[in-house]
């Protein structure tokens, strides 16, 4: 691997030693067979570029699902000293707080197998998907500002869910210090109609069941008994977050010049965390983070209603409760111990999941003996995983792990590959019912277009960043 400058640390960790303008090394969690894809994509070079940014601590990290992104790679984790470091919208991504919620019910697989089509139809009807999907009503600016401050609690206050839901969300579904005044009129306009909507692209709703349990104690704590019916929600902050990112990329481009920050790639545009621009971005980003929390809470509530309507049972007889919710695209101020010293850091996770160890005060009381659930969805035909964070993740990766399978084919390659095939029928043959607003979406998102998530999960488990708890298999999937 010397041709691309990668040095083996162990079978699942590779390093580009600090050289040239790099302040720290870049470290990539991957198996040997994954490295060819990663280097072909030049994603490792992006990880090395991030290592040049001011105030970066320890190393620029990449998870095994790393792939090329705008500036920062997707699957990247980078922590910056709060006094000397920078914050970058490119290190968070366009879909701020894109994330995953896992819910589990008291139903068993056999309870829904015969009505899965009805259930998907009810979910498809109740939860708008696809482009510009909206609930048909516009939120007033003052409601949106309240939502941006309160996050998921905004939805719960309106009867969409319970206080118990909030307990099981990262950050309890609300980041403090959100600043609506830092958000542009355009972002408010784009966000006005999109609460309670799934969006498009790789966003989805998936009804599944617990197919394998690897850690009985942890699974019991999370209510993931064998065969239990689950619901996974993957979506983010919609047009509101996209606009916040877009707005601040311009601001940071100017700020980087103003603060004389040398950038190896213009898309790494950033500003010192302590600067006016840095603080404004963080305040606007937190509004988008809270928007995504509220969005998933509203969707979770509508999903409960749809389950009840399809199965003709009151929600209490379905018992669909939140197991956990994680954010994938976020920057957070966190305390970590680095080289034996307590440090306050701004941790950027772009296409990466927080994976805190047992006993962390940041995770729900109920999970403190098990560790924070780490939710890793796969493609719609295979399986997804539930893992938990470890002490090793705390000491090596700022309490972070991977976030998904990652694409193997571009969208056009996938479409070419899907030509002449009936993807819905193929999936039905694998006992997975799929719905989408557009046939092309199914082609782009078909299982073969993605890597096998089991390979990604194997790396984070073998590297000691996570422990496996359970595997879920899909019964039905709605694509945005």
């Amino acid at each position, binding site marked *: 691997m010397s041709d691309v400058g990668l040095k083996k640390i162990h079978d699942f960790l590779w390093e580009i030693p600090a050289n040239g303008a790099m302040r720290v090394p870049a470290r990539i969690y991957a198996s040997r067979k994954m490295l060819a894809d990663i280097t072909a994509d030049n994603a490792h070079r992006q990880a090395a570029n991030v290592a040049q940014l001011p105030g970066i601590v320890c190393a620029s990290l990449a998870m095994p699902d790393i792939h090329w992104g705008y500036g920062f790679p997707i699957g990247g984790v980078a922590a910056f000293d709060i006094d000397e470091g920078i914050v970058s919208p490119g290190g968070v991504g366009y879909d701020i707080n894109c994330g995953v919620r896992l819910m589990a019910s008291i139903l068993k697989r056999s309870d829904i197998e015969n009505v899965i089509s009805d259930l998907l*139809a009810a979910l498809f*009807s109740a939860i708008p998907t696809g482009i*510009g999907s909206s609930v048909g009503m516009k*939120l007033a600016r003052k409601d949106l500002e309240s939502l941006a401050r309160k996050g998921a609690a905004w939805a719960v206050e309106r009867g969409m869910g319970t206080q118990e839901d909030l307990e099981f969300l990262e950050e309890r579904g609300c980041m403090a210090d959100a600043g609506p005044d830092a958000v542009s009129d355009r972002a408010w306009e784009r966000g006005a109609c999109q609460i*309670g909507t799934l969006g498009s*692209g790789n966003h989805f709703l998936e009804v599944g069941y617990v197919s394998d349990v690897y850690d009985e104690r942890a699974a019991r704590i999370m209510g993931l008994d064998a065969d239990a019916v689950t619901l996974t929600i993957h979506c983010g902050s919609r047009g509101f977050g996209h606009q916040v990112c*877009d707005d601040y990329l311009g601001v940071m481009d100017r700020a980087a010049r103003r603060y004389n920050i040398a950038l190896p790639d213009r898309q790494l545009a950033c500003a010192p965390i302590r600067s006016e621009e840095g603080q404004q971005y963080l305040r606007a980003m937190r509004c988008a983070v809270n928007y995504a929390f509220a969005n998933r809470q509203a969707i979770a509530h509508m999903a409960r*209603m749809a389950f009840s309507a*399809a199965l003709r049972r009151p929600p209490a007889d379905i018992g669909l409760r939140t197991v956990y919710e994680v954010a994938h695209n976020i920057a957070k101020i966190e305390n970590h111990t680095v080289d034996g010293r307590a440090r306050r850091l701004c941790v950027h996770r772009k296409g990466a999941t927080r994976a805190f160890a047992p006993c962390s005060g940041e995770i729900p009381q109920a999970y403190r003996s098990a560790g924070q659930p780490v939710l890793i969805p796969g493609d719609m035909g295979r399986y997804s995983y539930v893992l938990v964070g470890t002490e090793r993740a705390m000491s090596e990766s700022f309490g972070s792990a991977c976030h998904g399978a990652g694409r193997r084919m571009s969208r056009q390659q996938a479409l070419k590959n899907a030509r002449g*095939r009936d993807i819905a029928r193929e999936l039905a043959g694998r006992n997975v019912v799929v719905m989408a607003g557009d046939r092309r979406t199914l082609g782009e998102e078909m299982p073969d277009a993605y890597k096998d998530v089991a390979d990604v999960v194997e790396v984070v488990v073998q590297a000691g960043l996570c422990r496996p708890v359970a595997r879920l298999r899909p019964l039905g999937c709605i694509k945005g």
Partner: protein
Amino acid sequence: MIRGERTFIRDLVSEKSPRWENVPRMSCPGRMRLSAGAQERLASSAARPIADAWCIAGRLEDSCMDRKPPWLELLDPTADVGLRVRAPALKTLFARAAWGMFFLLTDVRAVRPVDTRTVHVEADDRAALLVKWLSELNFIHQVERRVFCRFVITEMSSRSLIAEVSGEPLTSATNVHMEIKAVTYHGLSVRRESGIWKAEVVFDV
């Protein structure tokens, strides 16, 4: 619209919680295809036609990707999409880039020029102007839920552009293929080579 759906939607954004009894109940048979009669009934009764979703069952064939004009190429970054456009003049280049974006978003040839509006954008340089122009159209598309098919650039300098754009509102019958989160600066270029204007732009989807 199915009985109860309006109440459900209204309650969602008001102080009340939607009640599960109000969720419209879709009656779908257990297989992948609905009968023609059932599709018709559902299509006529649902605000969100479930029948549309069932249409995804079937072979993926003549993708509109095959019917693109000769001056348009699709770029192929792994997770996103991009365009390469050629034109004899700069104004045409910008108009074609906009058409190309709506070619990705919808069946642009089926969009009717029902009404026309003026769009004005400014930027620091020509490449940034292309990003601003496409971002503005994407913003109108998402916020006002409209699609466009005709783009006439009436005035243009390297830092500003005024255009007349024509299109129509989105309806439940409009086929929208994807959502563009943002028009990016990655690999962005607007240049003239051997008398031909060329532009490349990548969208985050």
